[in-house]
């Protein structure tokens, strides 16, 4: 299970960002420890962890909203101009995506779930999940990648 720690953290960060992502990570693995003995031997552990992370991210976001500390909120559609690293720019761009796009991008590209599994987690059809992820990636390209791709072309 430990080998999936980094993957789950990337997913949680993409969906939540900041300290909330760490809380969701901890809650995910606590839930996993609780449920792990009942997990079938042939289960896809990665997909299962992403599913748990999705539910925990919702719980953590809800709890954070209840605490309602306005300064801690990441404003939607913020583009975090002038951040010193382009990594931060991309993270901000991900945070700025609409929720479903953010989830579809995180679960498919960072969590490795096929679109049908993404759809099972976030609702809707596999095709809708694929479109949400594609739209999300397109937006990320527009808000972030135009400059970065140019710089990184000779990698």
């Amino acid at each position, binding site marked *: *299970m*430990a080998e999936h*720690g*980094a993957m789950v*953290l*990337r997913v949680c*960060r*993409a969906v939540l960002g900041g300290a909330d992502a*760490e809380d969701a*990570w*901890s809650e995910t*693995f*606590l839930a996993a*420890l*609780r449920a*792990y*003995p009942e997990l079938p031997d042939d289960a896809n552990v990665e997909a299962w962890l992403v599913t748990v992370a999705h539910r925990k991210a919702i719980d953590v976001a809800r709890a954070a909203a209840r605490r309602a500390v306005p300064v801690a909120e990441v404003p939607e559609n913020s583009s975090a101009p002038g951040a010193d*690293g*382009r*990594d*931060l720019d*991309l*993270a901000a761009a*991900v945070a700025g995506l609409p929720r479903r796009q953010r989830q579809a*991008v995180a679960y498919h*590209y*960072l969590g490795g779930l096929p679109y049908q599994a993404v759809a099972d987690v976030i609702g809707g059809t596999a095709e809708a999940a694929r479109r949400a*992820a*594609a739209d999300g*990636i397109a937006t*990320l*390209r527009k808000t*972030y*990648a135009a400059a*970065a*791709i140019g710089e990184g072309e000779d990698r």
Partner: protein
Amino acid sequence: MIAHHETEARDLLEALPAVTEAELLGLRDRLADSAAAQGVLDVAYRTLDTPVGSLLLAATEKGLVRVAYEVQGHERALESLAALVSPRILRAPARLDAASREIDEYFAGRRRTFDLPLDFSLSRGFRAAVLSRLPDIGYGHTASYADVAAAAGRPRAFRAVGTACATNPLPVVVPCHRVIRSDGSLSGYAGGPAAKQALLTLEAA
């Protein structure tokens, strides 16, 4: 074409901030504390550097359940703990503080007996009976397989004693290294003959 888009998207997301080893270690420590507090940490483990190499130490809530030499394979030891004890295993050094301290003291020559709760759930039947007798062989002393068989109530079962020692889940702490052949030769050891010799030399000092 779709595959191409997938690769491009993945490349793009590669630029997200990397998850560092330090961040993960911090999160794992926090998780281990919470898991222990909530009673869902069945097996805690850590590694400890000693003069006979890195030792894997693992403990349940009952006590120390496994000590494994590097040559036995720490990964393999963890896998067998997951299969035989519980898959709820985390690196969580806190539960092993006392065991680590006592083992350090032993290798420094400042400790002659271990005063640790032990969990023998990896040993069954006669093997468990044999292991429970081994601490009777005092520090700096040795006994033969036949001696131990007699002490365990089955004087003819010296081969089974050999098996019990070879499969001792708690080497060093449960002193199977003090069991040698009647002719005085060392015979096998989980940590290898050099480790057995090193422990006996330490205790003879």
